[in-house]
């Protein structure tokens, strides 16, 4: 079978390796906390998505903070877990629907 090879332009982002040991250490600590929060979130995801439609979530300290606004959820999470740098936000859409994520400028 003939194989067609297309010449593509390089990606528009600039890839850089992180070499600063201080940044790498901080990133490692943050990732450990992110891993814990992510595992907790995925373990509870089905119930969270069922109970928090239309809410803005912040997960920190393996705990859920839900609010009507992102800033409020983050503020409550940061107050409860000021040492957790691995917090993250997630919005639960009001309605369940199939999603096409493809985007174009």
């Amino acid at each position: 079978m003939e194989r067609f090879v297309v010449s593509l332009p390089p990606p528009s982002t600039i890839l850089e390796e992180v070499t600063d040991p201080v940044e790498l250490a901080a990133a490692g600590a943050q990732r450990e906390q992110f891993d814990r929060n992510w595992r907790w979130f995925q373990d509870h995801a089905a119930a969270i998505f069922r109970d928090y439609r239309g809410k803005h979530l912040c997960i920190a300290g393996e705990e859920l903070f839900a609010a009507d606004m992102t800033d409020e959820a983050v503020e409550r999470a940061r107050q409860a877990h000021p040492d957790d740098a691995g917090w993250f936000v997630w919005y639960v859409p009001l309605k369940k629907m199939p999603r096409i994520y493809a985007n174009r400028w």
Partner: protein
Amino acid sequence: MRIDGDWALCDDGVIRPVVRGEVEAADGSWRAAPFLVDLGADCTVLAHDVLRSLGFSTTGQQNLGGIGGTTDARVLDTRVRLLRDDGSRVTFRGKYAALMSPEAGDLSVLGRDILGHFAVIADQPGGVVCLIRGRHRYTIEPC
């Protein structure tokens, strides 16, 4: 270079390929964020809630087009940072779109402006999500 991801449960009960990373905030700190691995997306797009958490005063405006039409977005000059399998990190500097409405997209999207640096493996039966380049290679063989 190898970057591993997960298959993650989303709000509609669908499992999607996700790579977790960080986005650089306005104050130089980093915010943890999951990204959908989407080879159909021309560009990386940050979800509205991630944008809110970064503290940028957004400037440039863009429209993002998808199957359902267009949506408002802002453009940020920032970096995305991903974890390599050896524990080191790699960053991607660029201009990224960020959604202005939470309903426009619940998950940030890793598009081809970043994924184009890699060979992308999203193997749902095998439970593998992986970005590879450089000395990491893949082979396809009959079993």
